[in-house]
């Protein structure tokens, strides 16, 4: 299992380097598989409780860590999810908001498929590029 950012990178390579040759529908199918897996991983990282979900997602979205005793960051607060998942899982799980955003972009591209293949592919590439550039801005990524 690989972190979402790498899946995104690989997907970007796949979509952008084969733009002219493939139907957009094939690219969409590829993206659906990436997103299905990433969505499931994001769900799995949740405890189902609003406390842990809120802390995890907020810190992931802003690239911050938990406040410690004196306001400094601590690496792993004891009340946070323990690493019950496979190694390499956590970075994928933290990408819930990005998965959600990319899903919306993929669905936007889906609406174009069959009508304007180039626009469909361009929408996918743009969405991936935006997310990847956002990834680069994330501290520690």
């Amino acid at each position: 299992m690989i972190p979402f950012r790498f899946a995104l990178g690989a997907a970007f390579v796949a979509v952008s380097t084969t733009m002219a040759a493939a139907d957009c529908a094939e690219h969409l199918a590829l993206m659906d598989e990436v997103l299905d897996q990433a969505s499931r991983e994001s769900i799995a990282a949740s405890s189902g409780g609003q406390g842990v979900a809120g802390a995890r997602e907020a810190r992931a979205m802003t690239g911050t860590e938990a406040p410690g005793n004196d306001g400094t960051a601590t690496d792993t607060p004891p009340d946070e999810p323990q690493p019950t998942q496979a190694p390499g899982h956590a970075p994928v799980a933290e990408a819930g908001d990005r998965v959600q955003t990319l899903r919306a972009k993929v669905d936007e591209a889906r609406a174009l498929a069959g009508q304007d293949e180039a626009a469909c592919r361009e929408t996918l590439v743009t969405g991936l590029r935006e997310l990847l550039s956002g990834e680069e801005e994330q501290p520690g990524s």
Partner: protein
Amino acid sequence: MAALENVSRRAVLLGLGAGALVLSLGLPSLAQEPEEPLKFGADAMPNGWRDDPRIFISIDPDGTVTVTVHRSEMGQGVRTSIAMAIADELEADWNRVRVAQAQADEPTFGNQDTDGSRSLRHFFEPMRRAGAAARLMLREAAADEWSVPVEEVVAENHVLSHAASGKQAGYGDMAARAAEGEVPARETLVLKSPDRFRYIGREDVGLIDNPGIVTGTAIYGMDAKAEGMLFAVVARPPVVGGRAVSHDAEAAMKVPGVQRVVMIDPPPQPSEFQPLGGVAVIATNTWAAMRGRDALNIRWEDGPHGTYDSEAFKAELEQAARSTDGTVVRNQGDALAALQTAQRRVEAEYYIPHLAQAPMEAPAALAMIRDGRCEVWACVQAPQVTRVRIAEKLGLPPEAVTVNVTLLGGGFGRKSKPDFAIEAALLSREMDGAPVKVVWTRDDDLHHSFYHTVSVERLEARLDDSGRPVAWLHRTAAPTIGSIFAPDPMQKLPFELGMGLTNMPLDIPNVRAENPKAQAHTRIGWYRSVSNIPHAFAIQSFIAELAHEAGRDHRDYLLDVIGPARKIDPTELGDVWNYGEDPARYPVDTGRLRRVIETVTEAAGWGRDMPARRALGLAAHYSFVSYVAVVAEVEVDETGEVRIPVAHIAIDCGPHVNPDRIRSQMEGAVIMGSGQALMSQITFAQGRAQQNNFDSYPVPRMDTAPREIHVHLVGGEDYGQPLGGVGEPGLPPVTPAIINAIFAATGQRIRRLPVGNQLSS
């Protein structure tokens, strides 16, 4: 697939292949990691779950069974329900079962955060297994004692017996021997079939804490006592992020009984669950502490949120909800294009104010420090978080902090945040470890809550010729809970959006959901059912508005818009939370949603003739993996006064472990939801919450509560089905059902909560 031959779909997923391009991304090392199955729900919780009977069950020589419950009891009956699950599999006599409350210790007990409507969802099966394991251990002990095969030993209703020899023993007789035995492997346990349940699923078990509650012997946070205990109240900054710049400690010290005045530093922002800071007055009794606080004459510096004003912020949220620059969080079809060409277009905006959880028991905690250890008694929903945060504050290891969890006089999410317990620990330290109880007054509670967010929900739809929606746009603008955890994320988190927005299951071809930015100016926290409240209110109100526009019966229209029974993978809707549950095991099942609507409307006599200014209103909502529908019967008199003579509520939450408690939770939800609809709100001016007590923050009382509440339990026969939540899902559809009924009765559409005096003009 020729074009993708260099990067197969699978390869992208696993990071394999793709040659040099992928090598440059550094994937090969990750590809070495073995793929492991994902865990969901209970399996994926922090510290997971436990089912070792030695943790949860003890049996005295006299046969008394004590079940240790690690979830917090706040009226939802979890201490009873967990004991029922264990006692049933243990084959214990319910009259000989007692419960004890676990201290904070997640490494031992598993997750203890009592939130998310998941205590039974996550622990029903582990607790059954613990009971079954203990029963087998007792049988093995008896077989050993009697030198007979274990298969021939029967455990039934607290008695072990061997038919062939006629031998019998009580559980207490074999308990010590059983405790020495091995705990049977989980996979060897055989759980009872539902037709053999003694307690699970029965309506008449009762609440195990009832005797203590009705006789006044039950211990809540406010009841905790210790010898030599001092009492403290805290004057907290009236504006979040503010601080005291001066105060008159001398004046406070002149009040007889006041022992000490202590400054508590305001926390850095975001403050998570840390105390707000302020000035504490410690005294020999609560009254003296309160009078001392009154004398402090504090001058406050308000900080950046000193201009927070609810009316101005409402306008800001409306502006945000009308803007097109929000993040797109769901985009199915092309809603924008469809809306642009609409002949029949409907739009509406809904406003949902801040709310305070306002549990009947305000926050209270007692702490003392002795010999390098801190001991706390507190009414907390999150004991382990309480333990860890206190340990951090005191510079102790978590193991040196003991958190005793009392009963909670209501929680609703407020008591998930242990700021009040941290205050007690800090003040005890100031008093050289003496026991200090921090008492919050009702004013304190309403002024310094972790409030339910405030939101504007904007919806637009295009209707086809039949009046059915073919395009749907929903923008939600609200400060996020994430603002207490990170530097103001400005947008709702995926778990908030997954509460009825992104996972909205209506059968509409073009759906778009957007989330514009909104800044938090106070502490935002979770409140029973969380973001489902605004989402359900807006969506269920809007559907009623569309039905009216289409000239169709609301019930028929709602069922039409939900569409045929189908199971939807929530991830395909863009939901990346799904209440933490496996999307395959917990799809969004529109058939179950339809069934609760059909049940509740039939029970309420939907469609019958009603007197003038009296009508039925309907709403339904899926949340916490359960399905709920409500019909409210409302009458509105000529002065605009609203009464709710009858309400019907139907829930499908999977198996009904404790039906009496499900009914109780639904009844409570109807009452709480009627308060949200008609009377409750927190407003801010100059950064300060304006409501002081129940005079200005009214909640339903006996004269205003719905007079009859009929609960209908749907499904529940199949124990092979996964459990849904119960504590929270009843609430979201109540308010829109009432508002829809008001419209049906008066023709006035309420889009701003609460109703207040909007009908009297």
